[in-house]
């Protein structure tokens, strides 16, 4: 099996999870209601745990460095997350819509990966999809309630959706190993994932009384998978590594 291709896949998934986990965790203590602080903190724990598990596979199976080193000691350019996850939490409307768009893609991605020819990832996928199912339920339930709540909440949901969608399409940016991954049966591919995702979220968005934004190809925000990031990733990584940098080599 192509090790480089697998590593690339593990990193982009791990980086997505780590960075969105970081963002979700920022809601702990300041959410719109205590129950939402709890929900976002729960999801943050799951995501950070998924990142750790994916890096762990790279460590154990591919002889890569340990998960802490992978997460805390890479440069911004070496990260392969999509730009959607990097954006600041903004207001709750954006964070909720991002969570909705991202987690639907995550759920389908992990469902596809349960059939992966790369067994360690297939095994992990079986476990993780069970967790993300609840993230999706949370997102759908809040999206619907807020879209059908007041005039303001409806307008906010639509505006957040319009804003986030060009970034969300960036989730499916192909890496240079896309063809290898498909050919070797490691992953069904971003195109297939995007099709399934569009079908799924369109149904929820429409049922919520919102309009699916049309996004021209030229507006899609690509780059993350190749190491080109928004201006928000570097400060995020600086913050994440603030403590470890004070005493490199120390155990924490």
């Amino acid at each position, binding site marked *: 099996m192509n090790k480089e291709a697998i590593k690339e896949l593990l990193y982009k998934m791990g980086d997505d999870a780590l960075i969105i986990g*970081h963002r979700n*965790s*920022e809601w*702990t*203590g*300041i*959410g*719109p*209601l*205590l*129950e*939402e*602080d*709890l929900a976002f*903190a*729960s999801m*943050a*724990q799951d995501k*950070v*745990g998924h*990142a*750790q598990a994916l890096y762990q596979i790279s460590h154990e199976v591919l002889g890569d460095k340990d*998960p*802490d080193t992978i*997460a*805390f000691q890479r440069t911004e350019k070496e990260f392969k997350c999509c730009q959607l996850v990097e954006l600041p939490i903004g*207001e*709750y409307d954006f964070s909720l819509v991002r969570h909705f768009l991202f987690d639907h893609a995550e759920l389908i991605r992990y469902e596809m990966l349960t059939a992966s020819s790369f067994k360690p990832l297939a095994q992990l996928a079986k476990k993780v999809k069970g967790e993300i199912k609840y993230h999706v339920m949370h997102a759908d339930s809040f999206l619907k*309630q*807020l879209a059908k*709540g*007041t005039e*303001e*909440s409806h307008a*906010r949901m639509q505006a957040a959706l319009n804003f986030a969608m060009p970034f969300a399409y960036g989730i499916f940016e192909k890496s240079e190993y896309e063809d290898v991954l498909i050919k070797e049966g490691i992953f069904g591919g971003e195109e297939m994932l995007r099709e399934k995702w569009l079908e799924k979220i369109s149904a929820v968005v429409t049922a919520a009384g919102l309009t699916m934004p049309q996004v021209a190809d030229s507006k899609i925000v690509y780059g993350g998978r190749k190491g080109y990031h928004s201006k928000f990733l570097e400060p*995020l990584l600086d*913050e*994440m590594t*603030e*403590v*470890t940098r*004070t*005493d490199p*080599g*120390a*155990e*924490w």
Partner: protein
Amino acid sequence: MYGNTHLTEEEAKRLNVTDEDPEKLAAFEAKIDRGEKIEPGEWMPKEYRKQLLRMIEQHAHSEIVGALPEGTWITRAPNFRRKLALIAKVQDEVGHGQMLYSAAETLGKTREEMLNDLMNGKSKYSNVFNYPANTWADIAVIGFLVDAAAIVNQTINSKGSYGPYCRALERICYEEAFHLKQGHDNFVYLATGTPHQRAMLQEAMNRWYRPLIHFFGPPDRNSKHSEKLMKWKVKLASNDAMRNQFLDMYVSKIQEVGITLPDPNLHKNADGIWEFSDPDWDEFKRVSGGDGPCNKERLEVRRYAEMAHRWVREALMNPSDKYKIPLA
């Protein structure tokens, strides 16, 4: 995490006057004497309701405000293990807030009213959260010692007379025991780590010593808690007794890893009572009165959370829903 409740002179005076029906009062007190719990909806003296509500409400506020200083370190936690533990820990604190607001609601005040009183300064929260968490070592000190202090207080209070509060406290103590473990683990790691890590921990310990002494409230000689609160099992141990228990349990655990406490007079006398230097009770008063290093910031964050997201709560509310006091 929560310290202790104490009364102003005025409040203590009011407590001792009662215009309650003597028969009902006698039955109520007899029930408490028998060690039975008072449940929502049962008859209770007005002052009992008021003091309990005040105490549970303060406790709930302390949990959610307490999530703030630690919460700011989640994104900076130095590895996966610490990060996951800290998110879970801070999440627990918010969850405790949620449980306690529910317990307080059984006494007839809504969560919204309580949060409003937090924001307008009418109701208080534990003083300890008005101090900043400056470094990662603060997270070790808070996780280990502030949680330990809270456990001392909450374990005692869980033997109180009001059913919903006791049940919430039992669950809370169970979770806090894990917080203490992760805090202690972090504390020991830093204490036995590099010179930089040890120095950082010692510096944090020096700053937290006084707030920790303050944590249990003013000394008994200045504290106006009435016999009545003890009789009604709203308060179960005096501030000094709890402080002494805490020092007894934890001073040695701090010192055994080579960390010192910044008080040359701290020692245990022959009667088993811990003596310490005057911890400046005026500072305690100033900080509880709103003039601490972080009071303003904490309330501003809370206000932001409430104001910026009013639209979410409004959208979720069903106009036909009526508020009902929950049973427990």
